[in-house]
């Protein structure tokens, strides 16, 4: 069987949710799972970074930062053409400029299961991509020199749960190094897939609830949420290739570009741009693009990366 059981957990959650089963995970479990995932990704990245760091990395990081600014700028006019309001377009664009840590975790698991090498410092890119899209999104919505409280927005973003956990894990991994971290390794080795499977079960349940809102927001949103990941993956993969990443690394960067945030960005945008309709952006990123990337996208982006390198 080619099917990955981890992905099947997502489908299971989706089906359970759509058939309106009584199944629900306690909220504290979901919180715990996402904390474990983010920490594990960070720790793993930090440990590998300690071994593999190089001056090239700096340029790559800057290029990825630029990617994070570019993506919302591409998404915004596309959304405007699809006749979304200015604030809604900016809001959705910010989501897609940023990344989904869950999608990233599935991509990593996918590469590991296929013994595909990828640059081990890639979690750093996740951190780098989380932030700029939020700022670009707000500029798109409000222009410069407006009443945005950048200070408290900065707080919200840099001190948000995901960034803090990713960065904290990264630093601890970096400082401790491979030997000292060994007793904590289960977090990103033997426990990683079980945690990811349960996380995806809950994501399936949550995604199934987004389908309700889909009826209202309709076909235009669905179109964007399916088309933009392909465009994003195209750009992300091309950049990965240009930066000289491995096949695995290129495919993961394509996946990151294709994915839309559903944790950090919604929380930040809800407070910074409350006029935007959060149902639209969540439905798109969580209800459509997330399942699409998990089920169809990642293998596709890997094939694309292989084609690029060959």
């Amino acid at each position, binding site marked *: 069987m080619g099917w990955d059981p981890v992905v099947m957990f997502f489908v299971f959650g989706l089906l359970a949710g759509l058939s309106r089963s009584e199944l*629900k*995970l306690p*909220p504290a479990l*979901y*919180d715990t799972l996402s904390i474990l995932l983010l920490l594990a990704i960070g720790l793993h990245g930090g440990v590998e970074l300690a071994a593999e760091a190089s001056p090239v990395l700096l340029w790559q990081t800057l290029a990825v930062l630029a990617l994070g600014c570019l993506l919302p700028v591409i998404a915004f006019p596309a959304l405007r053409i699809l006749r979304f309001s200015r604030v809604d377009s900016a809001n959705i664009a910010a989501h897609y400029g940023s990344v989904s840590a869950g999608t990233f975790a599935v991509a990593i698991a996918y590469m590991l299961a296929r013994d595909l090498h990828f640059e081990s410092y890639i979690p750093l890119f996740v951190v780098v991509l989380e932030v700029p899209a939020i700022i670009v999104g707000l500029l798109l919505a409000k222009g410069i020199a407006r009443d945005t409280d950048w200070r408290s927005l900065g707080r919200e973003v840099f001190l948000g749960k995901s960034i803090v956990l990713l960065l904290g894990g990264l630093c601890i991994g970096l400082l401790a190094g491979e030997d000292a971290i060994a007793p904590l390794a289960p977090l990103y080795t033997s426990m990683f897939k079980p945690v990811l499977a349960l996380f995806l079960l*809950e994501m399936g*349940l*949550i995604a199934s*609830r987004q389908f309700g*809102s889909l009826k209202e927001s309709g076909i235009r949103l669905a179109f964007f949420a399916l088309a933009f990941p392909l465009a994003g993956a195209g750009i992300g993969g091309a950049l990965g290739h240009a930066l000289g990443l491995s096949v695995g690394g290129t495919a993961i960067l394509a996946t990151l570009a294709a994915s839309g945030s559903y*944790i950090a960005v*919604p*929380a930040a945008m*809800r*407070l910074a741009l*409350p*006029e935007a309709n*959060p*149902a639209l952006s*969540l439905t798109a990123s969580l209800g459509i693009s997330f399942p699409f990337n998990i089920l169809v996208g990642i293998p596709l982006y890997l094939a694309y990366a292989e084609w690029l390198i060959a």
Partner: protein
Amino acid sequence: MTLPTRTLLTLIGEAALESKLVKDLEAFEVPGWTISDARGRGSRGVRRSAWDNEGNIRVEVICNTELAQRLLAHIRNQYHRDFAIICFLSEVQILREEKF
């Protein structure tokens, strides 16, 4: 024993607002507040607590009528347009008048 009365202001709204609301309450120098978690449905759709961005909170503040009315006005101006939030007042009898 007849007890003095005060106004109980109850807000129910999206959990994302918690830290903003707490800052407001501090700015208005209310004598205290109590928050608990909730879920619900209103004109802005269903809000479940299973998901960070969906749960509700329930905020209670006991204070004098004048302060409650000022708070109410602030919340109406600040949040009613863009956020899922409702508020209502009722009268309660309290002990220890000096606290509220």
